[in-house]
């Protein structure tokens, strides 16, 4: 969690109690379990937020989606845990410790903080994450003896051991998980504490512990409420970075790429601003998407302060990951070219970036058209006279044609009766007083007159 000042999350279930607090609030002495009055007494400036279970579930799902880049076997363990079955991908990531380090580092841009632990069974890993964060327990004979020292209260964590059973265990002086093992098994079973034995067996891996695998959503949608309304684009970009990190993880988990996504800027009392981010080719790189978003935002004038950001994407394109090439990436140059095109389009607008193609037409104005950059023009333009490299889109009337020195011509162009843009012109190549070569014409239809239409640059 970012340092958002002194902030605590409050649950109202059994009297208003603090369930979590920011580091600066913890430093003030606020602790989870405090009543609201108690917390306010030690930290008068404390801001309180109600617990939002829906948001917690959504965050877990987002996190699970993100974790899809490490292993396909993920399961959500409510209310606050995620289990990754990583034994098959350990070699790829260079071992448990390296994987844990990478997860921790990669979580930073997402704005999430996680306590990690690893163990041969999901239940044991969860217990360790709760009380011994960062412990990485490897499978070895009798590894589960290490669990014996853990407090017995953990039995209620992620298992069906009831509070009453825990109290029973407390009552007979059981403090550690290891103590349970020393109790007579049939005695426990008789006292409705069979769940304890079952849980222990699952934690030790003696009994199977199947879990439903998490399936990443078909459609990506992520929303980020800004801590304060924002009127400039720079903080928006920073916040959008988090959303794009999530999007990139979603893509990585699905081994997919996309060529468009939508960024919504939500305002308080106005219609939301929609940015359609279109890339030239399928991408899965968050940096590139973010860079395009930057160009869009830079060109944008915010109609109102922004309260929240929403990023959504669907129809991912299946795209296998690219392996490193020994002799450099042959696609790099083409990549640079499409990247440039995307970037220019995002900033200048799609209309300001184009190319020109010839069109089979005699009228000079209609003998070209604007075209999508990168497209090959169709072959077979009509044979015609020499054409200038520069054309004026609007012919300019010549005040004093006498100053011109006509070099060649005329070339009669008389065409276009079918679409109302009929013309009858005599084109000449002329030398201007400043020695430039101009393409001029005399209009044969009334009102007539001489015009310059292009330059032989």
């Amino acid at each position, binding site marked *: 969690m970012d340092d958002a000042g002194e902030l605590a999350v409050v649950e109202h279930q059994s009297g208003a109690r603090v369930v979590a607090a920011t580091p600066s609030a913890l430093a003030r002495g606020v602790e989870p379990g405090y009543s609201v009055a108690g917390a306010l007494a030690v930290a008068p400036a404390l801001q309180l937020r109600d617990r939002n279970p829906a948001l917690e579930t959504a965050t877990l799902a987002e996190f699970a989606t993100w974790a899809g880049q490490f292993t396909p076997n993920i399961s959500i363990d409510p209310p606050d845990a995620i289990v990754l079955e990583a034994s098959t991908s350990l070699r790829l990531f260079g071992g448990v410790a390296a994987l844990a380090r990478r997860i921790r580092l990669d979580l930073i841009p997402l704005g999430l903080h996680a306590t990690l632990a690893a163990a041969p069974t999901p239940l044991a890993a969860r217990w360790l994450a709760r009380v011994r964060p960062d412990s990485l327990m490897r499978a070895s004979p009798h590894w589960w003896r290490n669990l014996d020292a853990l407090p017995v209260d953990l039995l209620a964590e992620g298992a069906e051991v009831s509070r009453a059973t825990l109290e029973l265990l407390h009552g007979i002086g059981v403090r550690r998980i290891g103590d349970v093992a020393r109790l007579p098994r049939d005695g426990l079973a008789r006292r409705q504490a069979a769940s304890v034995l079952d849980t222990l067996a699952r934690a030790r891996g003696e009994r199977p512990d199947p879990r439903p695998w998490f399936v990443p959503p078909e459609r990506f949608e992520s929303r980020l409420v800004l801590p304060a309304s924002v009127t400039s684009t720079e903080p928006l970009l920073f916040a959008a970075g988090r959303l794009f990190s999530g999007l990139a993880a979603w893509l990585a988990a699905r081994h997919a790429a996309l060529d468009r996504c939508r960024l919504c800027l939500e305002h308080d009392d106005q219609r939301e601003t929609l940015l359609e981010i279109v890339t030239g080719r399928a991408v899965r790189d968050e940096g590139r998407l973010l860079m395009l978003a930057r160009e869009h935002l830079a060109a944008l004038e915010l109609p109102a302060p922004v309260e929240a950001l929403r990023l959504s994407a669907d129809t991912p394109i299946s795209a296998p990951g690219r392996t490193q090439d020994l002799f450099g990436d042959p696609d790099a*140059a083409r*990549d*640079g*070219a499409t*990247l*440039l*095109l995307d*970037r*220019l389009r995002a900033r*200048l607008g799609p209309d*300001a*970036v*184009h*190319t*020109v*193609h*010839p*069109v*089979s037409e*005699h*009228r*000079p104005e209609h003998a*070209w058209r604007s*075209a999508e*950059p990168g497209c*090959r023009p169709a072959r077979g*333009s009509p044979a*015609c*006279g*020499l*054409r*200038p*490299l*520069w*054309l*004026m*889109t609007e012919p300019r009337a010549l005040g004093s044609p*006498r100053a011109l*020195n*006509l*070099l*060649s*011509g*005329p070339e*009669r*162009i*008389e*065409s276009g*009766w079918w679409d109302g843009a009929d013309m009858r012109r005599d084109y*000449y190549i002329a030398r*201007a007083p*400043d*020695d*430039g*070569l101009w393409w001029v014409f*005399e209009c044969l239809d009334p009102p007539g007159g001489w015009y310059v239409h*292009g*330059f*032989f*640059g």
Partner: protein
Amino acid sequence: MSAAAQATLAALPPGLVWQADRLAHPTEAGMATGFAALDAQLPGGGWPRNALIELLADAPGIGELGLLLPVLRTVSAERWIVWVAPPWLPYAPALEAAGVPLEQLLLLEPANHAETLWAIRQALASGGSSVVLAWLTRADTAALRRLQLAAEASATPLFLFRPATAARQPSPASLRLRLEAQDDRLSVDIFKRRGPGLTAPIQLSIPQRPISACSPVYTDALVCTDPVRIAATGIHTGRG
């Protein structure tokens, strides 16, 4: 300079020390301009591959584009030929006839001066363009300096077209050319280069210009009442 110093200098590896009385020898050979007379006068034997090149001209239609056509014809595929803020429409039929690969052409029409500078820098920095042509009516030295640095860093040549009056303004460009029409030919005055000044402008005859192909028909169309029809393309019945 003493003979000993001459010998010492001559023994140095080429490109290490540039002596002002001869053309610099950049480590990388330039791009052939397509004009032998011009190549001979340019350091590196052609257009530098990573520099800002200023082309100063006032009048359109003197062959300013024709000068670059050989370069535009020989660019590598997969990369753009970027034109930033051209003053008129680059005419597709003529470009195609000249052999310019239109599928690599990227025309940018930025809305204002700041965006023009931004677009030029992007086109240079991306590594996705093989050559950048840009038209700037005004540019302060700081902006030119940034463009020169961007061109250097990206190893992409930038041809910057500016009005002739810009010759008076100092510029960080390593190569500055003044273009003028001289009868049928293009006169190129290299007034700044890494080397001694040019004694006289180079006269180039630009191919694909009408001038060498045809001779004057008559001098004043308005006096001539019945012009001789040389060609009449496009007939009235038209092509559907």
